[in-house]
Protein backbone atom coordinates (compact mmCIF):
# COMPACT_ATOMS: atom_id res chain seq x y z
CA UNK A 1 0.00 0.00 0.00
CA UNK A 2 2.80 2.39 0.95
CA UNK A 3 6.31 1.99 -0.37
CA UNK A 4 9.26 4.16 0.58
CA UNK A 5 12.46 3.76 -1.36
CA UNK A 6 15.68 5.41 -0.15
CA UNK A 7 13.86 8.40 1.34
CA UNK A 8 16.27 10.96 2.81
CA UNK A 9 16.09 14.36 4.43
CA UNK A 10 18.81 16.51 5.86
CA UNK A 11 18.47 19.73 7.82
CA UNK A 12 21.74 21.54 7.23
CA UNK A 13 24.40 19.16 8.42
CA UNK A 14 22.00 16.89 10.28
CA UNK A 15 20.75 13.80 8.51
CA UNK A 16 17.20 13.28 9.75
CA UNK A 17 16.24 10.37 7.54
CA UNK A 18 18.83 8.37 5.68
CA UNK A 19 17.76 6.22 2.72
CA UNK A 20 14.72 4.85 4.46
CA UNK A 21 13.08 1.95 2.69
CA UNK A 22 9.80 0.82 4.16
CA UNK A 23 6.71 -1.09 3.05
CA UNK A 24 3.34 -0.91 4.71
CA UNK A 25 0.92 -3.59 3.58
CA UNK A 26 -2.80 -3.07 3.31
CA UNK A 27 -4.71 -3.93 6.47
CA UNK A 28 -1.77 -4.10 8.84
CA UNK A 29 -0.79 -2.09 11.86
CA UNK A 30 2.80 -1.21 11.20
CA UNK A 31 4.74 0.27 14.09
CA UNK A 32 7.64 2.64 13.61
CA UNK A 33 9.85 2.69 16.68
CA UNK A 34 13.18 4.13 17.62
CA UNK A 35 14.85 6.31 20.23
CA UNK A 36 14.23 10.06 20.49
CA UNK A 37 15.72 11.92 17.56
CA UNK A 38 15.73 8.84 15.35
CA UNK A 39 13.81 10.70 12.64
CA UNK A 40 10.39 9.13 13.15
CA UNK A 41 8.44 12.39 13.10
CA UNK A 42 10.50 13.65 10.14
CA UNK A 43 9.61 10.49 8.28
CA UNK A 44 5.91 10.91 9.12
CA UNK A 45 6.17 14.47 7.79
CA UNK A 46 7.73 13.22 4.58
CA UNK A 47 5.11 10.53 4.08
CA UNK A 48 2.26 12.94 4.79
CA UNK A 49 3.74 15.61 2.55
CA UNK A 50 4.40 18.47 4.95
CA UNK A 51 8.13 17.88 4.50
CA UNK A 52 9.80 17.33 1.18
CA UNK A 53 12.23 14.57 0.30
CA UNK A 54 15.81 15.32 -0.70
CA UNK A 55 16.04 12.01 -2.52
CA UNK A 56 14.08 8.81 -2.86
CA UNK A 57 10.49 8.04 -3.80
CA UNK A 58 7.21 7.51 -1.99
CA UNK A 59 4.48 5.42 -3.60
CA UNK A 60 0.97 5.18 -2.21
CA UNK A 61 -1.70 2.91 -3.70
CA UNK A 62 0.47 2.27 -6.75
CA UNK A 63 0.93 5.95 -7.55
CA UNK A 64 4.04 8.04 -7.11
CA UNK A 65 3.12 10.68 -4.51
CA UNK A 66 6.65 11.95 -3.87
CA UNK A 67 5.89 15.38 -5.30
CA UNK A 68 2.23 15.64 -4.27
CA UNK A 69 1.25 18.32 -1.79
CA UNK A 70 -0.05 17.30 1.60
CA UNK A 71 -3.70 18.14 0.86
CA UNK A 72 -3.51 16.11 -2.34
CA UNK A 73 -2.22 13.11 -0.42
CA UNK A 74 -5.05 13.49 2.09
CA UNK A 75 -7.51 13.40 -0.81
CA UNK A 76 -5.83 10.21 -1.99
CA UNK A 77 -6.49 8.67 1.44
CA UNK A 78 -3.33 9.36 3.43
CA UNK A 79 -3.94 11.28 6.66
CA UNK A 80 -1.90 11.90 9.79
CA UNK A 81 -2.24 12.86 13.42
CA UNK A 82 0.35 14.87 15.32
CA UNK A 83 2.58 14.07 18.24
CA UNK A 84 2.05 17.61 19.53
CA UNK A 85 -1.69 18.09 19.63
CA UNK A 86 -2.83 20.16 16.67
CA UNK A 87 -6.54 20.86 16.88
CA UNK A 88 -8.76 23.91 16.41
CA UNK A 89 -8.75 24.99 20.02
CA UNK A 90 -11.33 27.74 19.74
CA UNK A 91 -13.79 25.51 17.88
CA UNK A 92 -16.12 23.12 19.62
CA UNK A 93 -15.35 19.42 19.39
CA UNK A 94 -18.21 18.99 16.93
CA UNK A 95 -17.03 21.90 14.77
CA UNK A 96 -13.52 20.43 14.71
CA UNK A 97 -14.77 17.13 13.39
CA UNK A 98 -17.37 18.68 11.07
CA UNK A 99 -14.63 20.71 9.41
CA UNK A 100 -12.64 17.57 8.73
CA UNK A 101 -15.75 15.88 7.34
CA UNK A 102 -16.43 18.96 5.22
CA UNK A 103 -12.90 18.81 3.84
CA UNK A 104 -13.60 15.36 2.49
CA UNK A 105 -17.17 15.72 1.25
CA UNK A 106 -17.96 18.17 -1.50
CA UNK A 107 -16.44 21.52 -2.32
CA UNK A 108 -15.63 24.01 0.37
CA UNK A 109 -15.73 26.87 -2.14
CA UNK A 110 -19.30 27.50 -1.09
CA UNK A 111 -19.76 31.06 0.05
CA UNK A 112 -23.41 31.60 0.89
CA UNK A 113 -25.13 28.56 2.33
CA UNK A 114 -24.82 28.33 6.14
CA UNK A 115 -22.74 25.33 7.08
CA UNK A 116 -24.78 24.93 10.27
CA UNK A 117 -27.70 23.74 8.13
CA UNK A 118 -25.74 20.83 6.69
CA UNK A 119 -27.07 18.14 8.99
CA UNK A 120 -25.05 15.46 7.20
CA UNK A 121 -21.73 16.97 8.25
CA UNK A 122 -22.69 17.16 11.90
CA UNK A 123 -24.28 13.71 11.98
CA UNK A 124 -21.06 12.21 10.75
CA UNK A 125 -19.02 14.38 13.11
CA UNK A 126 -21.16 13.09 15.98
CA UNK A 127 -20.57 9.50 14.91
CA UNK A 128 -16.83 10.08 15.01
CA UNK A 129 -17.10 11.80 18.40
CA UNK A 130 -18.91 8.72 19.71
CA UNK A 131 -16.22 6.49 18.29
CA UNK A 132 -13.54 8.57 20.01
CA UNK A 133 -15.35 8.52 23.34
CA UNK A 134 -16.13 12.21 23.11
CA UNK A 135 -19.91 12.03 22.81
CA UNK A 136 -20.40 13.89 26.11
CA UNK A 137 -18.09 16.69 24.98
CA UNK A 138 -19.32 17.60 21.51
CA UNK A 139 -20.37 21.10 22.57
CA UNK A 140 -17.23 21.89 24.53
CA UNK A 141 -14.48 24.11 23.16
CA UNK A 142 -11.53 21.94 22.21
CA UNK A 143 -9.25 24.09 24.39
CA UNK A 144 -11.21 23.12 27.50
CA UNK A 145 -10.81 19.35 27.02
CA UNK A 146 -8.55 17.28 29.24
CA UNK A 147 -5.26 16.21 27.70
CA UNK A 148 -6.41 12.69 26.91
CA UNK A 149 -9.58 14.00 25.29
CA UNK A 150 -7.56 16.38 23.14
CA UNK A 151 -5.42 13.45 22.03
CA UNK A 152 -8.58 11.55 21.12
CA UNK A 153 -9.82 14.54 19.12
CA UNK A 154 -6.44 14.74 17.43
CA UNK A 155 -6.79 11.19 16.18
CA UNK A 156 -10.47 11.79 15.40
CA UNK A 157 -9.56 14.64 13.04
CA UNK A 158 -7.33 12.31 11.08
CA UNK A 159 -9.97 9.58 10.96
CA UNK A 160 -12.70 12.02 9.92
CA UNK A 161 -10.99 12.39 6.56
CA UNK A 162 -11.74 8.66 6.06
CA UNK A 163 -8.17 7.71 5.22
CA UNK A 164 -7.11 4.40 3.75
CA UNK A 165 -3.82 4.74 5.59
CA UNK A 166 -3.51 6.76 8.77
CA UNK A 167 -0.19 7.87 10.24
CA UNK A 168 -0.50 8.11 14.02
CA UNK A 169 2.42 9.99 15.56
CA UNK A 170 2.55 8.95 19.21
CA UNK A 171 -1.20 8.97 19.81
CA UNK A 172 -0.64 8.04 23.45
CA UNK A 173 1.87 10.79 24.20
CA UNK A 174 1.28 12.10 27.71
CA UNK A 175 -1.71 9.87 28.35
CA UNK A 176 -2.45 8.15 31.62
CA UNK A 177 -2.68 4.33 31.67
CA UNK A 178 -6.46 4.32 31.46
CA UNK A 179 -6.54 6.68 28.49
CA UNK A 180 -3.81 4.66 26.81
CA UNK A 181 -5.89 1.51 27.16
CA UNK A 182 -8.80 3.30 25.53
CA UNK A 183 -6.60 4.44 22.64
CA UNK A 184 -5.21 0.92 22.19
CA UNK A 185 -8.77 -0.39 22.07
CA UNK A 186 -9.69 2.27 19.53
CA UNK A 187 -6.80 1.42 17.23
CA UNK A 188 -7.78 -2.21 17.62
CA UNK A 189 -11.26 -1.33 16.39
CA UNK A 190 -10.31 0.88 13.44
CA UNK A 191 -7.73 -1.54 12.07
CA UNK A 192 -10.45 -3.50 10.31
CA UNK A 193 -11.04 -0.62 7.85
CA UNK A 194 -7.87 1.47 8.04
CA UNK A 195 -4.23 0.59 7.60
CA UNK A 196 -2.18 2.14 10.40
CA UNK A 197 1.40 3.34 10.57
CA UNK A 198 1.98 3.87 14.26
CA UNK A 199 4.81 5.77 15.91
CA UNK A 200 4.79 4.98 19.60
CA UNK A 201 7.10 4.83 22.58
CA UNK A 202 4.80 2.71 24.69
CA UNK A 203 6.26 -0.73 23.95
CA UNK A 204 3.37 -2.51 25.61
CA UNK A 205 1.00 -0.86 23.14
CA UNK A 206 3.31 -1.43 20.20
CA UNK A 207 3.68 -5.14 20.78
CA UNK A 208 -0.02 -5.59 21.42
CA UNK A 209 -1.07 -3.83 18.23
CA UNK A 210 1.62 -4.19 15.62
CA UNK A 211 1.63 -6.82 12.90
CA UNK A 212 5.05 -5.66 11.85
CA UNK A 213 7.63 -3.21 13.14
CA UNK A 214 10.33 -1.07 11.66
CA UNK A 215 13.13 0.23 13.85
CA UNK A 216 14.68 3.58 13.04
CA UNK A 217 17.97 4.68 14.60
CA UNK A 218 19.79 7.85 13.55
CA UNK A 219 17.56 8.15 10.52
CA UNK A 220 18.27 4.63 9.26
CA UNK A 221 16.22 1.48 9.29
CA UNK A 222 18.16 -1.07 11.30
CA UNK A 223 15.51 -3.76 11.35
CA UNK A 224 12.06 -4.51 10.03
CA UNK A 225 9.82 -7.50 10.53
CA UNK A 226 7.39 -9.32 12.79
CA UNK A 227 7.34 -8.56 16.53
CA UNK A 228 9.19 -11.78 17.47
CA UNK A 229 11.88 -11.06 14.94
CA UNK A 230 12.34 -7.51 16.26
CA UNK A 231 12.32 -8.62 19.87
CA UNK A 232 15.17 -11.00 19.31
CA UNK A 233 17.12 -8.81 16.91
CA UNK A 234 20.50 -8.21 18.57
CA UNK A 235 21.14 -4.80 17.02
CA UNK A 236 17.70 -3.57 18.03
CA UNK A 237 18.19 -4.74 21.59
CA UNK A 238 21.48 -3.00 21.80
CA UNK A 239 20.41 0.24 20.15
CA UNK A 240 17.00 0.68 21.56
CA UNK A 241 14.97 -1.85 23.43
CA UNK A 242 17.51 -2.53 26.13
CA UNK A 243 16.21 -4.38 29.13
CA UNK A 244 12.67 -3.23 28.65
CA UNK A 245 11.76 -6.21 26.50
CA UNK A 246 14.25 -8.65 27.94
CA UNK A 247 12.59 -8.34 31.32
Amino acid at each position, binding site marked *: MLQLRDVSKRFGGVVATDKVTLDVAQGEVHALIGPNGAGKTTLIGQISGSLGVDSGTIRFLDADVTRLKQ*HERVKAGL*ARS*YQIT*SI*FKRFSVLDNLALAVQARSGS*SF*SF*WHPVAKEAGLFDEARTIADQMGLSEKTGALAATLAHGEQRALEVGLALATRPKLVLLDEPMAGMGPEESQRMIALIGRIRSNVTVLLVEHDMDAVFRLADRLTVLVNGRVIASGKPDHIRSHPEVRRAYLGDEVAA
Partner: protein
Amino acid sequence: MKRTLSVVILLLAFPLAMQWLGYLFYVSFASRVMIYAIAATSLNLVLGYGGMLSFGHAAFVGAGAYVASILVAEGIASAWIGWPAAIAVSALLAWIIGAISLRTRGVYFIMITLAFAQMMFYLVNSMKAYGGDEGLTLPKRADLGFGLDLGNELVFYYVVLALLMLCLYALHRVVHSRFGRVVVAIRENEARVEAIGLPVYRYQLVCFVIAGAAGGLAGALLASHGKYVNPNVLHWVQSGTLMIMVILGGVGRLWGGVIGAAVLLGLEHLIADHPIPWLVQLAPNYQQHANLGVGIVLLVIVLFAPQGIAGLLKRRRGAPA
Protein backbone atom coordinates in the same frame (compact mmCIF):
# COMPACT_ATOMS: atom_id res chain seq x y z
CA MET B 1 -31.06 40.57 15.88
CA LYS B 2 -33.15 43.13 17.74
CA ARG B 3 -30.11 45.29 18.20
CA THR B 4 -29.18 45.10 14.53
CA LEU B 5 -32.70 46.19 13.63
CA SER B 6 -32.57 49.20 15.94
CA VAL B 7 -29.19 50.24 14.54
CA VAL B 8 -30.56 50.02 11.00
CA ILE B 9 -33.64 52.06 11.92
CA LEU B 10 -31.40 54.64 13.57
CA LEU B 11 -29.21 54.85 10.48
CA LEU B 12 -32.30 55.19 8.25
CA ALA B 13 -33.72 58.02 10.35
CA PHE B 14 -30.43 59.83 10.92
CA PRO B 15 -30.24 61.96 7.73
CA LEU B 16 -33.88 62.99 8.00
CA ALA B 17 -33.31 64.20 11.54
CA MET B 18 -30.14 66.03 10.51
CA GLN B 19 -31.91 67.68 7.60
CA TRP B 20 -34.72 68.77 9.90
CA LEU B 21 -32.16 70.21 12.30
CA GLY B 22 -30.21 71.77 9.46
CA TYR B 23 -26.98 69.85 10.02
CA LEU B 24 -26.55 68.57 6.48
CA PHE B 25 -22.79 68.43 7.05
CA TYR B 26 -23.27 65.49 9.35
CA VAL B 27 -25.10 63.54 6.66
CA SER B 28 -22.06 63.90 4.43
CA PHE B 29 -19.80 63.06 7.35
CA ALA B 30 -21.81 59.94 8.11
CA SER B 31 -21.51 58.89 4.46
CA ARG B 32 -17.74 59.16 4.76
CA VAL B 33 -17.80 57.09 7.94
CA MET B 34 -19.86 54.40 6.23
CA ILE B 35 -17.50 54.30 3.24
CA TYR B 36 -14.59 53.78 5.59
CA ALA B 37 -16.72 51.21 7.36
CA ILE B 38 -16.96 49.24 4.10
CA ALA B 39 -13.18 49.48 3.63
CA ALA B 40 -12.47 48.45 7.23
CA THR B 41 -15.03 45.62 7.05
CA SER B 42 -13.33 44.26 3.95
CA LEU B 43 -9.99 44.39 5.73
CA ASN B 44 -11.58 42.67 8.71
CA LEU B 45 -12.39 39.66 6.52
CA VAL B 46 -8.69 39.25 5.73
CA LEU B 47 -7.23 40.43 9.02
CA GLY B 48 -9.82 39.43 11.58
CA TYR B 49 -11.39 36.29 10.15
CA GLY B 50 -8.52 35.14 7.94
CA GLY B 51 -5.69 36.08 10.31
CA MET B 52 -3.69 37.55 7.42
CA LEU B 53 -1.87 40.68 8.59
CA SER B 54 -2.22 42.66 5.38
CA PHE B 55 -0.59 46.05 5.72
CA GLY B 56 -1.44 47.13 2.20
CA HIS B 57 -5.20 47.29 2.06
CA ALA B 58 -5.08 50.91 0.89
CA ALA B 59 -3.82 49.58 -2.45
CA PHE B 60 -7.25 48.14 -3.19
CA VAL B 61 -9.20 51.10 -1.86
CA GLY B 62 -6.92 53.41 -3.83
CA ALA B 63 -7.11 51.37 -7.02
CA GLY B 64 -10.89 51.46 -6.83
CA ALA B 65 -10.85 55.21 -6.19
CA TYR B 66 -8.56 55.85 -9.13
CA VAL B 67 -10.36 53.56 -11.57
CA ALA B 68 -13.72 55.15 -10.80
CA SER B 69 -12.25 58.67 -10.92
CA ILE B 70 -10.40 58.17 -14.17
CA LEU B 71 -13.57 56.85 -15.78
CA VAL B 72 -15.51 59.92 -14.60
CA ALA B 73 -12.69 62.19 -15.80
CA GLU B 74 -12.84 60.45 -19.19
CA GLY B 75 -16.55 61.11 -19.44
CA ILE B 76 -17.83 57.69 -18.33
CA ALA B 77 -19.73 58.84 -15.28
CA SER B 78 -22.19 55.97 -14.89
CA ALA B 79 -21.84 54.31 -11.52
CA TRP B 80 -23.02 51.09 -13.15
CA ILE B 81 -19.80 51.04 -15.14
CA GLY B 82 -17.43 52.86 -12.80
CA TRP B 83 -18.14 50.95 -9.62
CA PRO B 84 -18.06 47.44 -11.09
CA ALA B 85 -14.89 48.43 -12.95
CA ALA B 86 -13.34 49.60 -9.67
CA ILE B 87 -14.34 46.32 -8.02
CA ALA B 88 -12.96 44.25 -10.90
CA VAL B 89 -9.62 46.06 -11.06
CA SER B 90 -9.16 45.88 -7.29
CA ALA B 91 -10.02 42.19 -7.33
CA LEU B 92 -7.48 41.57 -10.07
CA LEU B 93 -4.87 43.57 -8.20
CA ALA B 94 -5.64 41.62 -5.02
CA TRP B 95 -5.26 38.40 -6.96
CA ILE B 96 -1.81 39.40 -8.23
CA ILE B 97 -0.59 40.82 -4.90
CA GLY B 98 -2.13 37.95 -2.95
CA ALA B 99 -0.72 35.26 -5.24
CA ILE B 100 2.78 36.49 -4.47
CA SER B 101 2.39 37.71 -0.86
CA LEU B 102 0.56 34.62 0.39
CA ARG B 103 3.63 32.52 -0.24
CA THR B 104 5.20 34.30 2.71
CA ARG B 105 4.27 34.34 6.38
CA GLY B 106 4.54 36.54 9.42
CA VAL B 107 6.63 39.68 9.20
CA TYR B 108 7.45 38.96 5.56
CA PHE B 109 3.76 38.98 4.66
CA ILE B 110 3.28 42.32 6.43
CA MET B 111 6.28 43.82 4.64
CA ILE B 112 5.48 42.51 1.18
CA THR B 113 1.86 43.72 1.27
CA LEU B 114 3.13 47.09 2.47
CA ALA B 115 5.70 47.16 -0.32
CA PHE B 116 3.09 46.44 -3.00
CA ALA B 117 0.85 49.22 -1.70
CA GLN B 118 3.74 51.67 -1.68
CA MET B 119 4.57 50.68 -5.26
CA MET B 120 1.00 51.55 -6.19
CA PHE B 121 1.36 54.83 -4.31
CA TYR B 122 4.40 55.83 -6.38
CA LEU B 123 2.77 54.60 -9.56
CA VAL B 124 -0.25 56.93 -9.23
CA ASN B 125 2.08 59.72 -8.08
CA SER B 126 3.74 59.49 -11.45
CA MET B 127 0.50 59.42 -13.46
CA LYS B 128 0.80 63.02 -14.67
CA ALA B 129 -2.17 62.64 -17.02
CA TYR B 130 -4.39 62.12 -13.98
CA GLY B 131 -3.05 64.76 -11.69
CA GLY B 132 0.10 63.09 -10.45
CA ASP B 133 0.83 64.05 -6.88
CA GLU B 134 -1.76 66.84 -6.96
CA GLY B 135 -4.60 64.41 -7.39
CA LEU B 136 -7.61 64.46 -9.61
CA THR B 137 -10.63 66.69 -9.14
CA LEU B 138 -13.89 65.39 -10.54
CA PRO B 139 -16.61 67.57 -12.07
CA LYS B 140 -19.32 65.62 -10.27
CA ARG B 141 -20.19 62.41 -8.48
CA ALA B 142 -21.02 59.27 -10.45
CA ASP B 143 -24.41 58.95 -12.18
CA LEU B 144 -26.72 56.32 -10.78
CA GLY B 145 -29.68 56.85 -13.12
CA PHE B 146 -33.26 56.00 -12.09
CA GLY B 147 -33.73 59.67 -11.23
CA LEU B 148 -31.39 59.34 -8.26
CA ASP B 149 -28.96 62.23 -7.98
CA LEU B 150 -25.88 61.21 -6.00
CA GLY B 151 -25.02 64.92 -5.76
CA ASN B 152 -27.81 65.10 -3.20
CA GLU B 153 -26.30 64.28 0.20
CA LEU B 154 -29.35 62.34 1.33
CA VAL B 155 -29.47 60.18 -1.78
CA PHE B 156 -25.75 59.52 -1.54
CA TYR B 157 -26.13 58.62 2.13
CA TYR B 158 -28.87 56.07 1.47
CA VAL B 159 -26.96 54.50 -1.41
CA VAL B 160 -23.85 54.12 0.76
CA LEU B 161 -25.97 52.79 3.62
CA ALA B 162 -27.54 50.20 1.31
CA LEU B 163 -24.10 49.09 0.09
CA LEU B 164 -22.72 48.91 3.62
CA MET B 165 -25.64 46.75 4.73
CA LEU B 166 -25.12 44.56 1.68
CA CYS B 167 -21.45 44.15 2.57
CA LEU B 168 -22.24 43.30 6.17
CA TYR B 169 -24.86 40.78 5.15
CA ALA B 170 -22.45 39.25 2.66
CA LEU B 171 -19.73 39.06 5.33
CA HIS B 172 -22.20 37.40 7.69
CA ARG B 173 -23.14 34.83 5.06
CA VAL B 174 -19.55 34.18 4.00
CA VAL B 175 -18.14 33.63 7.48
CA HIS B 176 -20.87 31.11 8.25
CA SER B 177 -20.48 29.26 4.97
CA ARG B 178 -18.21 26.31 4.30
CA PHE B 179 -15.67 28.70 2.85
CA GLY B 180 -15.79 30.97 5.89
CA ARG B 181 -15.29 28.07 8.28
CA VAL B 182 -12.18 27.07 6.37
CA VAL B 183 -10.81 30.62 6.40
CA VAL B 184 -11.33 30.94 10.16
CA ALA B 185 -9.84 27.49 10.69
CA ILE B 186 -6.73 28.55 8.77
CA ARG B 187 -6.37 31.47 11.17
CA GLU B 188 -6.63 29.05 14.09
CA ASN B 189 -4.34 26.30 12.83
CA GLU B 190 -3.02 26.48 9.31
CA ALA B 191 -1.02 23.25 9.37
CA ARG B 192 -4.02 21.26 10.49
CA VAL B 193 -6.24 22.62 7.72
CA GLU B 194 -3.69 21.36 5.21
CA ALA B 195 -3.55 18.06 7.12
CA ILE B 196 -7.30 17.47 6.77
CA GLY B 197 -6.93 17.88 3.03
CA LEU B 198 -7.66 21.52 2.21
CA PRO B 199 -5.33 23.69 0.11
CA VAL B 200 -4.67 26.58 2.49
CA TYR B 201 -3.12 28.84 -0.15
CA ARG B 202 -6.15 28.73 -2.45
CA TYR B 203 -8.60 29.58 0.32
CA GLN B 204 -6.48 32.45 1.55
CA LEU B 205 -6.11 33.80 -1.97
CA VAL B 206 -9.85 33.75 -2.65
CA CYS B 207 -10.45 35.45 0.70
CA PHE B 208 -7.86 38.09 -0.16
CA VAL B 209 -9.51 38.72 -3.55
CA ILE B 210 -13.00 39.09 -2.05
CA ALA B 211 -11.67 41.63 0.45
CA GLY B 212 -9.76 43.47 -2.27
CA ALA B 213 -12.91 43.70 -4.40
CA ALA B 214 -14.94 45.16 -1.53
CA GLY B 215 -12.07 47.56 -0.81
CA GLY B 216 -12.31 48.68 -4.43
CA LEU B 217 -15.99 49.48 -3.99
CA ALA B 218 -15.17 51.58 -0.93
CA GLY B 219 -12.55 53.42 -2.99
CA ALA B 220 -15.00 54.20 -5.78
CA LEU B 221 -17.47 55.57 -3.24
CA LEU B 222 -14.76 57.58 -1.51
CA ALA B 223 -13.77 59.27 -4.78
CA SER B 224 -17.38 60.09 -5.58
CA HIS B 225 -18.00 61.39 -2.09
CA GLY B 226 -15.19 63.95 -2.13
CA LYS B 227 -15.26 64.46 -5.92
CA TYR B 228 -11.52 64.27 -5.52
CA VAL B 229 -8.84 61.65 -5.28
CA ASN B 230 -5.12 61.94 -4.62
CA PRO B 231 -2.28 59.47 -4.12
CA ASN B 232 -2.57 59.67 -0.34
CA VAL B 233 -5.54 57.32 -0.58
CA LEU B 234 -2.90 54.64 -1.35
CA HIS B 235 -0.35 55.75 1.21
CA TRP B 236 0.70 53.27 3.88
CA VAL B 237 -0.76 55.61 6.51
CA GLN B 238 -4.15 54.86 4.98
CA SER B 239 -3.50 51.11 5.31
CA GLY B 240 -2.53 51.73 8.93
CA THR B 241 -5.68 53.75 9.55
CA LEU B 242 -7.84 50.91 8.25
CA MET B 243 -5.96 48.46 10.46
CA ILE B 244 -6.50 50.70 13.48
CA MET B 245 -10.22 50.87 12.68
CA VAL B 246 -10.44 47.08 12.63
CA ILE B 247 -8.49 46.72 15.89
CA LEU B 248 -10.50 49.44 17.62
CA GLY B 249 -13.83 48.09 16.45
CA GLY B 250 -13.18 44.40 16.89
CA VAL B 251 -10.95 41.95 15.05
CA GLY B 252 -13.08 39.19 13.55
CA ARG B 253 -16.34 40.82 14.62
CA LEU B 254 -19.12 41.50 12.14
CA TRP B 255 -19.59 45.11 13.22
CA GLY B 256 -15.92 45.66 14.06
CA GLY B 257 -15.12 47.66 10.93
CA VAL B 258 -18.22 49.83 11.28
CA ILE B 259 -17.63 50.64 14.93
CA GLY B 260 -13.93 51.25 14.34
CA ALA B 261 -14.55 53.62 11.44
CA ALA B 262 -17.20 55.54 13.40
CA VAL B 263 -15.08 55.85 16.54
CA LEU B 264 -11.85 56.78 14.77
CA LEU B 265 -13.32 59.32 12.36
CA GLY B 266 -15.64 60.65 15.05
CA LEU B 267 -12.73 61.11 17.43
CA GLU B 268 -10.65 62.84 14.77
CA HIS B 269 -13.53 65.17 14.00
CA LEU B 270 -14.19 65.93 17.66
CA ILE B 271 -10.57 66.74 18.39
CA ALA B 272 -10.07 68.83 15.27
CA ASP B 273 -13.33 70.80 15.23
CA HIS B 274 -14.34 71.11 18.85
CA PRO B 275 -11.55 72.64 20.89
CA ILE B 276 -11.68 72.05 24.63
CA PRO B 277 -11.00 75.47 26.25
CA TRP B 278 -8.90 74.32 29.21
CA LEU B 279 -6.85 72.04 27.01
CA VAL B 280 -6.21 74.85 24.52
CA GLN B 281 -4.81 76.94 27.35
CA LEU B 282 -2.65 74.09 28.48
CA ALA B 283 -1.42 73.06 25.02
CA PRO B 284 -2.35 75.64 22.39
CA ASN B 285 -1.92 73.47 19.31
CA TYR B 286 -3.00 70.12 20.69
CA GLN B 287 -5.60 69.83 17.93
CA GLN B 288 -2.87 69.39 15.35
CA HIS B 289 -1.88 66.26 17.19
CA ALA B 290 -5.20 64.47 17.03
CA ASN B 291 -3.35 61.22 16.44
CA LEU B 292 -2.01 61.35 19.96
CA GLY B 293 -5.55 61.09 21.29
CA VAL B 294 -6.33 58.31 18.86
CA GLY B 295 -3.16 56.55 19.92
CA ILE B 296 -4.11 56.67 23.57
CA VAL B 297 -7.55 55.24 22.83
CA LEU B 298 -5.98 52.50 20.74
CA LEU B 299 -3.57 51.65 23.52
CA VAL B 300 -6.37 51.36 26.04
CA ILE B 301 -8.39 49.14 23.71
CA VAL B 302 -5.50 46.83 22.90
CA LEU B 303 -4.55 46.47 26.55
CA PHE B 304 -7.96 46.20 28.14
CA ALA B 305 -10.31 45.06 25.38
CA PRO B 306 -8.38 42.95 22.89
CA GLN B 307 -11.67 42.02 21.22
CA GLY B 308 -12.27 45.67 20.40
CA ILE B 309 -15.31 47.77 21.15
CA ALA B 310 -17.60 45.21 19.52
CA GLY B 311 -16.25 42.58 21.90
CA LEU B 312 -16.78 44.93 24.82
CA LEU B 313 -20.42 45.53 23.89
CA LYS B 314 -20.98 41.82 23.58
CA ARG B 315 -19.45 41.03 26.96
CA ARG B 316 -21.55 43.62 28.71
CA ARG B 317 -24.65 41.90 27.47
CA GLY B 318 -23.45 38.78 29.22
CA ALA B 319 -23.26 36.69 26.07
CA PRO B 320 -20.25 34.42 25.66
CA ALA B 321 -17.60 35.87 23.37
